[in-house]
Structures are given as structure tokens and as C-alpha cells.
């Protein structure tokens, strides 16, 4: 969105944080009259503004707190939308800096109010990502003092303070709260939409040399233009591989498996033309996924120091150091193990029933067409039970019940 408009007004909000009234005024480009009054009022209250914020809420007659709360809530919604656009998690300190100014104590109320706006207007909500410690705790399963020790170690290793870890990651992503069946509907192809998309694409781009670009699928929500579906596919395969490897996968294992899937270390991941890079190397893509929170890459526990994590820095020159891949917090909150498990199950069952597919031993010598058809219907009947069996197998491979989105 309006990237260039922002520059002309650069020396704004960021400088005036200690003084809420100024921050407020400068952020309002279109000065509303009723807000003008509010500014004047607030100027007097600058010194004890913190206290006032609390008082304001109790007094029904005073509009100050309410207006300020609304302003901050709408600003938070904007911030959340724009941050999500980049697929990076929104950090709490960013919210404090850019939205709250000095009113950091107003966070719970502003947050709640912003959630209301997001849900009501856009059908989305902010979700706090799990911290690494929380994820570890979940992975460790119920109880066990031994696990508790691990947790301590994990905290030390990641440099997360105990208190912070207990309070969650303090980072947020936007997630749709539309009914899941509605989302399914929104992903189907509709001819009417497809037609209009084709018409749009025609005259939109004069240059047929390098247009081509994004394939439209005629769905209500255009996943193909909002995301890089090719790269996303690679991510989901990686998530699936990690899941069925017991939720942890060694660096070497992952790379070897990707190699058999024809993504060697020197391979590249292709992006849609909307990206500022045509391709990324595998390593670049993996580190992007770590940055976005889809994957977690950390040092593996050493066999010798059982239950303890080696110090990251110290062990770097040690040739023994190995790294492993886990799901990042965003993968847990955005996709969920269940969905990836279902994706794997569907894929495997489908693969099996394909003629000539690896697992399709019974159609090795597909004779007559009639016989083939009979087999096909039988396969269909089998599919459901196979799917179920496969799902159980995946759960076993993952090493425990699959979690829904968190």
C-alpha cells in the first residue's frame, strides 16, 4: 500500500513518543474537530497521563480515554494487517512503540478492542504464537521432572528469561476466523470468477513477453496472488517430513530427503513474479522460513550430554555439532499438525490408488477396462479405511497425538 506517501511525512510519530498528545495529533492527518478538543484537554494532563488513563475508563462522562483507546485500537489493526502482509510475526514491543506510545499499560484494553474490530470487520483475529518453551513443554508431554529440567535447559540455551517464557512469546499473527467450511468454499473454482479474472489479466498487462505471471484459479480468495504457492508447497512438504520423523528431523536427514525429492543443496525454490527475487537457494529459503516462524532450527542434543543442550557459541568449532529442524511457532498456529497429517494421509492414499503407483500392487497388470472399473470402485470403498489407517500410522510416526492449530 501507499509506500511512497509515507516518505513525505517522515519526521512524525516516532519522535514524539514521550508526549502522547503530540503523538496523537501528528498521527491525525485529517484533523477531526471533536478530536481537536480532546487534544487540548490532554495537553493539560500530560504529566499524570498514566494515572488519568486508568481513571478515564471509570468515568463514563469523559470521552478522552475512550477516544484514545479507539485510536490506538484502530492503529493496532492497521499495524497487524500490514505486518501480516510481510508474513512476519508482530512483536509486542512493536505494538508498544508504534501504537501505544507511553501508554504501555493500556495494552490489554487496546488489544481487546482491536480484536473486536478485526473479528467484526475483517473476520480475522490476532493469535499469540507459542513460545519455544511452551512448545517444548507440549512436546515433552504430560508430567515428568526430567522434562522440567529439559525446559530449564532450553530456556538457558535460548536466552529466554523464565518469566517471559511463562508469559508466552509476545508475538502475534493474524488468522482468519471465518467458518472452516466457508474457507473451503472460498477455495473452490467458480467459473464466473475465473472468467472475470481472465478478462482482468488480459488488458491489465500490455506486455505479453513477461506477463504470464500468476495463475488465477477462480477462487473467492485468491491464494495464488496473495502467496507464493510453489514455495508454500515446498514448506508443507518439509513440515510433513518433520512431522512423520517424530517432530524432529536432523539437518542431514532433511537435506538428504529433499535431495531425493529433487531439491539438492544447490537447488532453488521458484517464486511468483510478485516477489523481488525469482528464486531463492534452498538455504536462503530455509532461513526465510525460520525468520517467518514456520521452522525452528537449533542445535541438536548431544548423545554424550544427555538431557543437556550444549552452548551454541562454544560448540561451533566442534565438528560434532549437529542441527535439527522442528516446526516453528507459526506452523503450529497457522497450519496445525492435524492438517498436515491429513495432507500426508490423503496424498499417500491417493498415491496408492493411482494406476501404476508405487503402492498399487493390485493394478500391476490392468487387463480389461471393465475389470479396471470394478477395481476402481473397490478402491474407493477401501479409501476411507485406508485413510484412517494411514492417519494412525502418521500419528505413530509423529510420536503422539497430533495437535490442532494452537
Amino acid at each position, binding site marked *: 500500500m501507499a509506500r*511512497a506517501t509515507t516518505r513525505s511525512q517522515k519526521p512524525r510519530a516516532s519522535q514524539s513518543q514521550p508526549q502522547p498528545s503530540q503523538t496523537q495529533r501528528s498521527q491525525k*492527518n485529517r484533523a477531526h474537530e471533536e478530536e481537536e478538543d480532546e487534544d487540548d484537554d490532554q495537553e493539560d494532563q500530560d504529566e499524570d497521563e498514566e494515572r488519568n488513563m486508568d481513571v478515564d475508563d471509570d468515568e463514563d462522562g469523559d470521552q478522552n480515554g475512550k477516544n484514545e483507546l*479507539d485510536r490506538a485500537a*484502530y492503529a493496532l*489493526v492497521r499495524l497487524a494487517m500490514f505486518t501480516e502482509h510481510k508474513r512476519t510475526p508482530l512483536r509486542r514491543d512493536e505494538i508498544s512503540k508504534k501504537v501505544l506510545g507511553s501508554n504501555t499499560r493500556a495494552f490489554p484494553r487496546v488489544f481487546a478492542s482491536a480484536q473486536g474490530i478485526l473479528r467484526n470487520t475483517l473476520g*480475522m483475529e490476532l493469535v499469540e504464537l507459542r513460545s519455544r518453551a511452551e512448545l517444548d513443554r507440549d512436546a515433552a508431554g504430560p508430567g515428568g521432572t526430567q522434562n522440567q529440567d529439559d525446559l530449564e535447559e532450553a530456556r538457558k540455551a535460548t536466552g529466554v528469561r523464565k518469566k517471559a517464557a511463562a508469559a508466552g512469546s509476545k508475538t502475534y499473527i493474524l488468522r482468519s476466523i471465518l467458518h472452516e*467450511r466457508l474457507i473451503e468454499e472460498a477455495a473452490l473454482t467458480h467459473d464466473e470468477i475465473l472468467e472475470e479474472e481472465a478478462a482482468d489479466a488480459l488488458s491489465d498487462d*500490455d506486455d505479453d513477453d513477461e506477463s504470464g505471471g500468476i495463475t488465477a484459479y477462480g477462487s473467492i480468495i485468491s491464494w495464488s496472488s*496473495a502467496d507464493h504457492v510453489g514455495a508454500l508447497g515446498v514448506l508443507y512438504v518439509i513440515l510433513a517430513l518433520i512431522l512423520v520423523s517424530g517432530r524432529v528431523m536432523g539437518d542431514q536427514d532433511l537435506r538428504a530427503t529433499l535431495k531425493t525429492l529433487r531439491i539438492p543443496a544447490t537447488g532453488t525454490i521458484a517464486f511468483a513474479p510478485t516477489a*523481488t527475487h525469482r528464486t531463492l537457494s534452498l538455504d536462503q529459503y530455509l532461513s526465510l522460513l525460520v525468520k517467518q516462524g514456520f521452522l525452528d532450527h537449533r542445535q541438536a542434543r548431544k548423545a554424550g550430554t544427555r538431557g543437556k543442550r550444549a552452548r551454541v557459541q562454544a560448540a561451533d568449532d566442534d565438528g560434532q555439532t549437529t542441527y535439527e529442524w522442528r516446526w516453528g511457532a507459526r506452523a503450529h498456529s497457522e497450519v496445525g499438525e492435524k492438517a498436515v497429517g491429513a495432507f500426508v494421509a490423503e496424498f499417500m492414499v491417493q498415491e496408492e490408488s493411482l494406476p501404476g503407483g508405487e503402492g498399487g500392487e493390485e493394478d500391476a497388470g490392468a487387463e480389461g477396462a471393465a475389470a479396471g472399473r470394478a477395481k476402481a470402485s473397490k478402491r474407493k470403498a477401501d479409501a476411507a479405511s485406508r485413510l484412517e489407517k494411514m492417519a494412525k500410522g502418521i500419528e505413530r510416526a509423529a510420536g503422539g497425538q497430533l495437535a490442532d492449530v494452537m
Partner: protein
Amino acid sequence: MSTVNAKDVQRLFLQAVLSRGVLSGKLAQALWAKAKDAVMAVDNNLDISHSGTREEWEAFVIKVNQALDPLDLEFRHLQEETTGREMYAIVNRKGDEVAQMATDYTPTEIAFFKALVDQIMSAPRESFSLSSLAALREVSVLKKSNMTKTQAEVVLSSFVAKGWLQKSKRGRYSLSTRALLELQPYLKSTFPDEVIECVICFEIMTKGIACTGPNCQVRMHYHCFTKYTARNRKCPTCNCDWPGNDPHTMTPVGESAARDGDDGRRRIRKSVENSDDEEEEDEQADEPSQPRTQQSRKNKTKAAQTQSMDVDEDESEGEESDTPAKTQGTRRSSRRG
């Protein structure tokens, strides 16, 4: 998650629009209809009427904008300059610190884009376009940038793919409908002398026609010209006779006005404070044949342009120095009357 209700139509519609960036009015209306169907498909008991009339659509757009207004966003539309099609986008009305992050472009890439907009807006003879070679040249002028030309090419096509810039068959970049929708306040405040408006629809204009009369300020979009000339054959301001309703007979605004030498050297824009005179002097010293402030452009070049237009075309056909060689036919058709 438990149930759906009629309000989900608008939510789904907004998510659909947000996933696209810019879209035609027809597509937007198709999405609206399908969003209703989708909600009803999930809950059979819901009965949401849909007549598909213009009035109903406009009422819906108003409702959408009421929801977006406190967020300083607007579901705005503009007619595409080349086709006259209605295009919609959700645009950000507020240029605050938060909006700086509204794109996934890096600061360098944004600086590159701004430099391109600058060159496009200040292009001589109201051509509002830039050759691909000149576009790439802008990278080397950027401060603190280590973007290579190869990278710049990819970034350029990303601008095009995301609908910020348009690339013509001739290989020239111009502002897209999305850029005009979203950047209008910026363009008007940054390029007050360069921005021109259509006398019919009063919207900003970068592609269209100019009156052939000497010193006449009249500018029209192609689609506005077609509408206007259906009933009139005289310029609305200077009253001079117009040859007919074929836009090719008029002085072009936009790419067709560009000549190949135009981008031979970089145009350096003076800060807004500088007086026009000063600017004009500098410019004329550099490129005597291409004065570029608006007044001088109009006073001196209009008369000459009308005669030189055809010549201009023939000339440029031969010496495609910096634009990919194309057939003669495309040159004509790129004007899209």
C-alpha cells in the same frame, strides 16, 4: 467458528479483495455474488438476496467503506486510463509510520520505486513513461544501494506483477491504475506542476489526449474523449475544431508522446521550492529541445507537436535504441484509441 451469518459475506469479500490488490469492478461484483453463495452454502437457512443491480452494488460499497473508514482505508475505484474499465482497490489513506511497512519491499526497493515515479512524472512532452533502459539506470543513481541491474530487473517485474507499474509492448513503464489509486495524494503534493487532470472526469491523468489548439490546457482520458466527441466536435475551452472522434488525430498524452531520445539522459528534478524559471533554465541548458515545466511545454511545444507527431512516429520506428524492437503495428496499437 461455530456459525456463519450474513455479515460473513462482507468479511469474506474483504478477504477476497485483500488477497488480490487491484481488481476490476466486474470481478469485484462476481466475488460479492459468490461470497453470498458461499455463506448460503454453509448455512442453508440463510437467505441472502442478490439482485446484482448497480444500486445494490453501490450500497454495498458504501457499507464496506463505512467499515474501513476508521481504519483509514478505502475501497476506492478509478477508471483504467487505457480501457476506461472500472478498477477497484483497497487503498491506504494515511501516510503514517505504520504504513511504511505496508509493503514487503525493502527501503532500497521503495527508493527505487520513488525514483521511477519521479522520472515517469517528469518525462518530457507529457509522455508519463520511461524506457526500460532508463528505468534500470535509476538503480545506479540510488544512494546506499548495492542492487545490481539483474536484481533491479526482477524488482521491476515485481512492481509490474503487483500492479504498481505498467509495462507496455514497447517496453516502457508507466503508472498503473493501482499506483494512481493509491498514490494520488503523493503525486499531487510532490509533482504539483506535472500532474494533469482530465477536464471531463477531473481525475488524475497520465494517458489520453490533449487539445490540438495552441496553448490549450484541455486534456482528456481516451474514454472521456470518446464520450465527449460523441456529441461535440469542438474543444470545450478554446473552442477550436477537432478533427473527429479518433483519438489518434489528437496530441497524445502518455507513452505515444515519447520519443526515443527522451530518456537519453536522466532528468534531475529540482526540489519543489525552486522556482519554475530556475528550473527551466537548467533544463534548457541540458536539453534545449525538451523544456519540461508545464508552462513551457505547453507554450512552445504544442504547435510543433501537432505537426511533428506523424514524423515522430516514423522517426522512432527506425532507431529503437533503447526499447526492444517491435513491429510497427504494435506502436500504433499501443495507443489503444
